[in-house]
């Protein structure tokens, strides 16, 4: 047991943060919010040059050979800087999916380009009216030599800049009833509409209307789509938790700095105990969130079962970080109610990140499911039997 960052991880985090915090002005970040692309291509190029887009991919595919834990630190840094980029869509979602579960032709074709930042890919998984994925309505109907895709997906990140969309559909051909298909975004019948959403991501609804793709569009081996999807959902939840930790850190830093300098009643606000106690609670909650996120990321990175830890991390961060940003605003008062003060960037991004990949209720329901059906997993690494003591 050693819950400290290694020197390398710590320096990766500070380098990433130093870059992310100086990459764009707050005005530029605001201007990007609503645009089709959603990010600054030059900055993405720099991020690729620094090796971020490639960090989790193997050396022989042009990556840096690091793991999911390091990726989480980078995502956290981007969250802390409110820096928009296709990192989540292209690396966390599509890139890692192809790396872990992709058939060789797609892996070989796309992963090196994703790693180099030359191509952006994304995933289309969630569906309107069914964002928690109880069922999948989109279909891939077998045709001679290929499939026809029909259905509508939502919360598709960076659809305007993505070359291709890894799309989840029901498929009668497949042993698990599901297929992931690689759909070039320019194909006929693919239509997209920008969602207007809180936060900084370029999110889209994408409709597939009789889109035909060849049989080689299948991304995974038959019967492997569900497992790939489970890993994607776990990874997405864990890395949204990492983003939330970054958001929380930024909101706390702004608040503490403000409390030290804003003077009312001839004293800095931060000398008032009510303010101090708010800040202490924020700090404590943030630390708990960070530890839970680290644990989930470390387990996922090591390929260990992490259902419980991911659910705990996302449930806690999705509750605590938006709450932290509310308190941050309380301590700032009116000044941060205006758009030109940076705190609102975090207030809105906390809402979006908390809602993505399962909110707090969703993940507590997952924990409650473990409680009812798999008590050992719910309890975690505890070796004692139940019950514990004589009555």
């Amino acid at each position, binding site marked *: *047991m*050693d*819950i*400290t*960052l*290694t020197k390398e*991880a710590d320096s990766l985090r500070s380098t990433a943060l130093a870059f992310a915090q100086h990459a764009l002005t707050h005005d530029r970040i605001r201007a990007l919010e609503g645009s089709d692309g959603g990010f600054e291509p030059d900055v993405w190029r720099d991020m690729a040059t620094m090796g971020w887009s490639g960090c989790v991919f193997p050396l022989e595919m042009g990556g840096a050979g690091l793991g999911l*834990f390091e990726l989480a630190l980078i995502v956290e840094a981007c969250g802390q800087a409110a820096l928009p980029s296709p990192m989540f869509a292209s690396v966390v979602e599509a890139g890692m999916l192809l790396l872990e579960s992709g058939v060789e032709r797609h892996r070989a074709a796309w992963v090196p380009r994703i790693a180099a930042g030359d191509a952006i890919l994304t995933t289309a998984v969630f569906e309107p009216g069914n964002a928690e994925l109880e069922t999948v309505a989109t279909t891939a109907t077998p045709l001679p030599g290929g499939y026809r895709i029909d259905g509508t997906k939502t919360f598709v990140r960076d659809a305007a800049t993505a070359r291709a969309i890894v799309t989840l559909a029901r498929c009668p051909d497949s042993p698990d009833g599901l297929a992931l298909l690689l759909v070039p975004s320019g194909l006929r019948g693919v239509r997209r509409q920008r969602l207007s959403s809180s936060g900084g991501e370029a999110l889209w609804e994408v409709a597939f209307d009789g889109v035909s793709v060849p049989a080689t569009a299948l991304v995974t081996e038959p019967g492997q789509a569900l497992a790939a999807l489970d890993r994607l959902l776990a990874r997405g939840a864990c890395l949204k938790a990492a983003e939330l930790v970054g958001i929380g850190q930024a909101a706390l830093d702004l608040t*503490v700095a403000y*409390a*030290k300098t804003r003077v009312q009643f001839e*004293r*800095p606000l*931060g*000398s008032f*105990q009510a*303010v*101090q*106690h708010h*800040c*202490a*609670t924020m*700090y*404590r909650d943030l*630390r*708990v969130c960070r*530890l*839970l996120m*680290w*644990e989930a990321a*470390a*387990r996922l990175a090591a390929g260990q079962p992490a259902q419980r*830890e991911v*659910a*705990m991390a996302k*449930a*806690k961060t999705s509750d605590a970080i938006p709450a932290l940003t509310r308190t941050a605003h309380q301590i700032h008062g009116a000044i941060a109610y205006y758009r030109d003060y940076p705190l609102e960037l975090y207030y809105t991004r906390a809402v979006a990140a908390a809602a993505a990949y399962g909110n707090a209720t969703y993940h*507590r*329901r997952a*924990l*409650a*499911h473990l*409680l*009812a059906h798999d*008590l050992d997993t*719910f*309890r*975690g*690494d*505890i*070796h*004692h039997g*139940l*019950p*514990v*003591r*004589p*009555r």
Partner: protein
Amino acid sequence: MDFDLTADEHAFRDEVCAFLTAELTEAVWRTERDPDEQGQWRREFTKAFRRKLGAAGYIGMGWPAAYGGGGKSRVYQTIFAEEMEYHRAPGLDRSITYVPNALLAFGTDAQKAEFLPRIARGELSWFVGYSEPEAGSDLANLKARAVPDGSDFVVTGQKAFSSEAHMAEYCWLAARTGPVSPKHRGISMFIVDMQSPGIRIDRYPTLAGWTHHAVYFDAVRVPDAHLVGEIDRGWSVIMGAIDFERAALAAPGLVAFQLDRLLAHAREQGRLDDPVLGDQLARLATEAEGARLMSYWIASLHAHGEMPQFETSMAVLCKRETARLFDAAGLEMLGAFAPLRAGSPGACFDGDIEAEYRDHLYFQFAAGGFDITRNVIAHRGLGLPR
């Protein structure tokens, strides 16, 4: 970064668990709990048990071998503390946690040689003489005096809220040796033999059903050799010792036990699939995991040779606030049976949950309660102005 116990740490945990399970049998629970002191083990049993812990090598695992220690990392101490709390075993208190750690950090070589081996063998019980009637949170307001006289100091004054003073061989005492102002200057730390003439102990029953003490010192002679640290510089010793204290109090075994007890109850009642309860238990389990990670994070920092300060406050706050969540949630889960006490028909867990609801009340204000701890985090952790 590694969230798993190593094979060796795992084996150690299993060993401690097996030891405690074998020692604290149902028969022992029946006979060795003190019927007059709610939630406490009998005094003699506690002392004997502490000697067993010493013989098993569990005390001072992290100290240098020269002082009877085992030279193991702090992670082992945290595993040990977690198991002890989980099993609700006797003897895990200041006597084997922060007093020896403070002695190691601040004591003279002679003091270490005199006390640490005996502490490691589990032979000594300590009480901590900080608080006084007028010096609670504002500890620097303490008034007990130690006046130099030949090769001794002569101590006169009153200590309050003195846990386990009645069974202590020694007192870890804060007394004023210098000027009253500034308050933090002029305090010194002493080790006082509780057999010394001039010491009187009063008893006060607590609302938790056990007895607390107040200790009066009337011209008690303490040899120079038992001054810890420099004269008039005791405040920094106290502050250092308090960080060790908080690290010890942050052990996560209590909340793990509280969670498991509620899980056992829910399973017995066939309510593991109750969605409302499921949501509550999911929240509680998440908080318990957070408290566990906090505690092992502190242990990891210690193991790397760092000296966490406000971080220990954060950890103890997290653990104790979580424990209080469990206290309230436990009563809620028992429904109408919640208030029933030990021995009553219908009492669940022998009334323990209601008893702990009273007992743990002190978490909120004693030894760096919730508000004082937030002050510490704000000042020392975030640098907010006083």
